[in-house]
């Protein structure tokens, strides 16, 4: 689904790489937390997946496509397979909830009929039915983030990228957003979420990738925000990250079913 092969990203005018020799693979249907301090490279990772940036070296494959080979004219069509959610919601203040979600479909040329069929569904999924004609400033932060999530999922993306979606929200609202994201994930969408929220990561017990200084120092299934029993593993340069914890399945294990600690079977 998403594969990074020894990806390094150096921003211009910046000697230190934002990502340094990162290799990893994220499978279809996974729920992945991306954790690490500010500036560690989480956002760069998401931007690379979106092809908003191109890597300085290394290869990235998303949805079976080599991002280095997609012509810039084809990038928009590639992005239609991805949904993105941000910490600051990024809603259009002069459009209603319905129009904010419909805008996504309008600008990719969907028909009016399709829009009127799909948007209410998406709003219902995020629990906002009945608020379609409100404006963003009339909504709470949690509701605004739900609109943003509806916008991200309305086109049924295969992958959802969330950059600190709960960063601006209080804990109980965050919990609501997280259960929504889990539900979306359960419907088959791969979710990659960058976060600082230790409580959420610890509670959900999903795959955790920790980034420090542009390197992956931990890739753990069913992990918490902080390293617990698992020792920090320096990632081998140019090879897929391995997980050192004994008994833990690694993501570089033969693809197929990988059993998570909670016993839930995953693709």
């Amino acid at each position, binding site marked *: 689904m998403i594969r990074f092969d020894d990806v390094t990203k150096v921003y211009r005018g910046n000697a230190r790489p934002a990502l340094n020799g990162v290799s990893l693979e994220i499978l279809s249907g996974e729920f992945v937390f991306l954790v690490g301090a500010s500036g560690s490279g989480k956002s760069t990772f998401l931007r690379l997946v*979106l092809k908003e940036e191109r890597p300085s070296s290394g290869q990235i494959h998303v949805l079976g496509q080599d991002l280095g080979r997609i012509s*810039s*004219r084809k990038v*928009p*069509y*590639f*992005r*239609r397979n*991805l949904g*993105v959610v941000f910490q600051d919601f*990024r809603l*259009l203040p002069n459009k209603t909830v319905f129009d904010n979600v419909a*805008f*996504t479909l*309008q*600008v*990719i*040329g969907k*028909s*009016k009929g399709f829009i009127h069929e799909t948007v209410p569904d998406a709003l219902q999924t995020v629990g906002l039915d009945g608020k379609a004609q409100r404006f963003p400033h009339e909504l709470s932060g949690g509701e605004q983030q739900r609109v943003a999530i509806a*916008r991200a999922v309305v*086109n049924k993306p295969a992958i959802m990228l969330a950059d600190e979606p709960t960063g601006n929200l209080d804990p109980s609202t965050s919990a609501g957003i997280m259960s929504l994201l889990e539900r979306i994930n359960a419907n088959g969408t791969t979710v990659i979420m960058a976060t600082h929220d230790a409580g959420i990561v610890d509670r959900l017990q999903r795959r955790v990738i920790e980034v420090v200084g542009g390197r992956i120092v931990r890739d753990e299934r069913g992990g918490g925000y902080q390293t617990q029993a698992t020792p920090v593993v320096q990632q081998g340069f140019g090879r897929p990250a391995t997980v050192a914890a004994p008994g833990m399945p690694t993501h570089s294990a033969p693809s197929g079913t990988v059993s998570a600690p909670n016993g839930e079977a995953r693709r």
Partner: protein
Amino acid sequence: MRVGLVLGEVAQGLRRNLSMVVSVVLVTFISLTFVGAAILLQMQITQMKSYWFDRAQVAVYFCTELSTVGACSQQAATDEQIAQVEAQLESSTLAPFIQEVTFETQEEAYANFQEQFAGTAAADLASPEFLPPAFWISLVDPSQSDVIQDAVGGFAGVESVQDQRAYLDPIFDILNASSLTAIGIAALMLVAAALLIATTIRLSAFSRRREIGIMRLVGASNRFIQTPFIIEGVVAALIGSVLAGAAVVALVQFFVQGYLSTTLPLTSFVGLSDALIVVPILLLAGAVLAAVSANVAITRYLRV
């Protein structure tokens, strides 16, 4: 659906950016008016050239008792010498080039001179001896005066061969210079217009950066994102072009036809039909200029 959406975006952009749009309209208006004026001036020059050059003659002047230039040494050309030149002009080699030849005696030249310079000091000073007898030749092709020069220029008794077109050249030089000046100003103004359009479009894109950001994120095609901005620039420039076209037509109608042609009734001037040829050129120039500069501006804005 999509057309309506794009046009809605255009209308919104034009409204949001009104002061910049007005300045684009004014600058394209002025610059294209200069372009139109330059084109009309060139048309005028062409028209005058064909009018005057067709009437320009070649003069073969003969020696008088007073002339010292050329082959003359204060000896008037004899009748035989004149007859020789006439025979040469009528020979089969020269005849195809010549439409008409008339001979002007000293007395006739004096009479013409008196008529032309009546009331000036030159008319009082002149006398028939000063004015050479001459053949006035109308050529089939006025530009081939060299043929006459080569054929009879060296004959005994011929003082000089002169092409009247040489006298017209300074006039056309002046007209050409003013036309070039208009083109130069127009070019500078067009550069200003292109830059202003680019700035306006970038400003418009900046004021809609939220929408653009989301469109890019959700995978709207580049063309879909860019088209409203390009149309916005083209609409603003087209308004300026229409104004410039109206100005050019008004200039021809009221100044050239209404004033100049009554003041100088003998000269033919450019008319409305010429102005109506210029208008579509201006519209096209305005639209292309705006489309290109808006396209460059928005493409550079989106490529980050």
